[in-house]
């Protein structure tokens, strides 16, 4: 009957096979996170922190130009980056509200970002007639922010209502098309009077107030060196708004609506049975999240002083950028967007500076190729070691897999070689940042589902667990509020 069966030969289960319909007992927890044991002492972690944090801090200082303080001057572009990070963080707060807390994946929030930015510039430049507001239709920049929020809320509700009735991929797809649709509308020549069409709006430079506050003679100048500096003002403004929105979001999440959102994410059916009106909750959440991202957009437009529909952050890549920052920071973590946005701006800047230095090309590619070869060799070697008995005993099963792995890795190497050929005619390292962020998304989705902040909380809770606690409040109490992107 069985030609694959010999006496005493057992059909073994490859550890690589995941086609079993059920979970396999292993050393990992269900979520895929390695199980960390609390046996390491504080010194161990202190060492870890020093090893990782010090270089990170150094790099941060380099990128944001904070070393300039020591040197006696400010690096203005560094301050601009910091302001960008806070502004992006606000936009990410919006994505986090709908995707992290409510579990509805949106890949289209850059559209709200664009709408917010355009709103800010359209109003401050007096491009629409607003009879009862503004001085000769020209608005004070500050007042454009709530208008942007309100507009984005409305648009969010209109787009969200149909898409949110269906499950995950439909909203993701709809938001993707939404981004391109908004860009087309912004570029549309019939709306040129308002949006500036393909060329966009070039506004006057936004002049920041001289003092951050002027309160009974207590004055805090906007620029620390005495001059009113836009970047520094934007840092104050966006940081203040960011903190305000973080407070607001954590307030929402503690309210009835917030609990309904989390319930919707964790189990839609259960939530509905408990009396949550799913479509209302999802639509309100989507509108709110759009409004928050719109606030970020308005700040972005005001800081930049010009907008056009081809600004990268307004398009598809902007949407992905927001997603990257949310995932890296940690979905459903209140501090996640800030951490993620700073991380994004920081890595993007490094990647950009590498891309601009053409001399490093060959070194980078040589290193990449060496690493690739090394990885392939290690993988093949490990596979052969793990399966050597299989390969020896069961030729029909083990051998063709080994051949497959070898052939696969060889073709990967050939592909890498062909790519290297490609660069010789004028390729650039422009895409480095994108590649890094793409790979980060893949890795975080698999290995760090709780993001940086969520993982930090887990580590912290491991510390706390060293001290015995009553079982009733041990795990549940210290687990992060919501630790998954979506669903169970």
């Amino acid at each position, binding site marked *: 009957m069985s030609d694959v069966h010999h006496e005493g030969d057992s059909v073994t289960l490859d550890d690589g096979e995941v086609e079993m319909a059920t979970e396999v007992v292993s050393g990992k927890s269900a979520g895929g996170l390695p199980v960390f044991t609390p046996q390491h002492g504080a010194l161990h972690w202190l060492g870890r922190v020093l090893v990782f944090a010090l270089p990170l801090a150094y790099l941060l200082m380099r990128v944001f130009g904070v070393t300039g303080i020591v040197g006696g001057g400010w690096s203005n572009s560094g301050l601009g980056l910091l302001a960008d990070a806070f502004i992006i963080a606000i936009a990410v707060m919006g994505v986090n509200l709908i995707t992290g807390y409510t579990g509805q994946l949106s890949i289209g929030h850059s559209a709200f970002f664009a709408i917010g930015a355009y709103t800010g510039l359209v109003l401050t430049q007096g491009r629409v007639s607003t009879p009862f507001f503004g001085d000769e239709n020209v608005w004070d920049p500050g007042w454009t922010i709530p208008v942007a929020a309100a507009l984005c809320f409305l648009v969010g509700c209109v787009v969200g209502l149909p898409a949110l009735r269906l499950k995950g991929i439909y909203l*993701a797809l709809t938001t993707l098309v939404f981004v391109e649709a908004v860009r087309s*509308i912004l570029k549309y020549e019939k709306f040129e009077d308002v949006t500036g069409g393909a060329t966009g709006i070039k506004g006057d430079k936004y002049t920041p107030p001289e003092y951050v506050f002027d309160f009974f003679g207590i004055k805090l100048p906007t620029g620390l060196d005495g001059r009113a500096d836009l970047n520094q003002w934007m840092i104050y403004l966006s940081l203040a708004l960011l903190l305000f929105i973080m407070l607001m979001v954590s307030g929402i999440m503690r309210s009835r609506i917030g609990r309904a959102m989390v319930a919707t994410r964790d189990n839609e059916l259960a939530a509905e049975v408990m009396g949550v009106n799913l479509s209302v909750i999802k639509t309100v959440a989507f509108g709110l999240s759009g409004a928050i991202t719109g606030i970020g957009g308005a700040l972005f437009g005001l800081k930049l002083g010009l907008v056009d529909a081809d600004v990268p952050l307004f398009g598809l890549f902007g949407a992905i950028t927001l997603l990257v920052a949310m995932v890296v920071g940690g979905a459903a973590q209140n501090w996640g967007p800030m951490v993620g946005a700073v991380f994004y701006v920081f890595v993007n800047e490094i990647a950009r500076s590498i891309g601009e230095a053409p001399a490093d090309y060959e070194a980078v590619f040589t290193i990449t190729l060496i690493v690739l070869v090394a990885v392939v060799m290690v993988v093949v070697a490990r596979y052969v070691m793990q399966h050597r008995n299989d390969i020896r005993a069961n030729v029909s099963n083990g051998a063709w897999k080994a051949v497959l792995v070898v052939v*696969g890795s060889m073709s990967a190497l050939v592909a890498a070689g062909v790519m290297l050929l490609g660069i010789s005619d004028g390729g650039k390292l422009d*895409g480095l940042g994108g590649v890094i962020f*793409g790979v980060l*998304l893949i890795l975080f989705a698999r290995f760090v589902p709780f993001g940086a902040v969520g993982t930090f909380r887990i580590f912290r809770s491991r510390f706390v667990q060293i001290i015995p606690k009553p079982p009733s409040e041990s795990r549940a109490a210290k687990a992060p509020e919501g630790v998954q992107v979506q669903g169970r």
Partner: protein
Amino acid sequence: MSLFIQRMFDGLAEGSIYALLALALVVIFRSTGQLNFAQGEIGTLCAFFASTFTLSGLPVWVAILLAMAIGFLIAAFVERVVVRPIENRNPGAVIVALIGVFLAVNQLSAMFWGVDARSLPSLFPTNADSFFRIGDAAIRWERVGIIGVLAVVVVLLFLLFNRTKIGLAMRAVANNQESSNLVGIRVGNILILGWGLAGAIGALAAVMLAPSAGLTGTLMLGPFLYASVAAVLGGLDSPVGAVVGGLLIGLLKAFLIGYVDFLSDMLFPVMLVVLLSVLLFRPAGLFGTEKVERV
């Protein structure tokens, strides 16, 4: 009238590209319930490979076959390494990872082949006089060729799904993975195969489009969106729907550009309206089965 026929062929040719891409999306959706957001970008990368191959002197059809093979490998790799480990976790994680693939693949091609347009020769004659006439309408052979490619792919897919044991296994896996396991189908291998197949079809769509559209890193961004709308319009689990939806979207686009002047720059807003209308009034699409999870 002749203009109408010409536009119709333009639309059908463009629609054929969307139909191919939508077919690839449907093949994957049926087997794993995922929408492969990286489908278009994998195709673009393969088209770049094809252009490098033709530059090195290979005949066009060999370059296209090689590109399809690369598309197969990349998509199969994505299924096994990126999607499978997290597919049971939650749908959001898979989408996030696929968006990561989208970004990485897109930027990889920008990194290695630059941002300037490359040339990729067409499989079909593209000379100024490579056309035939229906009445007054001049129909370019290239257009007919692309429509023909779609027809061939549809026939081959039909034969694969309905006349072979592997095809039966693919349909079985799409329907019920647990039972497929029980009748001895190696579900994992079938899933890899399905993704690979979709990758190859996506690559084919890209190399068909590249000669006329110009090969840049953004080659498939728009077509992917059109194809996704087409797939939803036809029904995400219906291959027939993908073809019909793709052709309909292609025709709609050609006629909007040709006849409705004020909408010719507003194609994406129109697509958004189409998409939202389908989701509102017929979530299963024209040919899909009515079991879309409503919530």
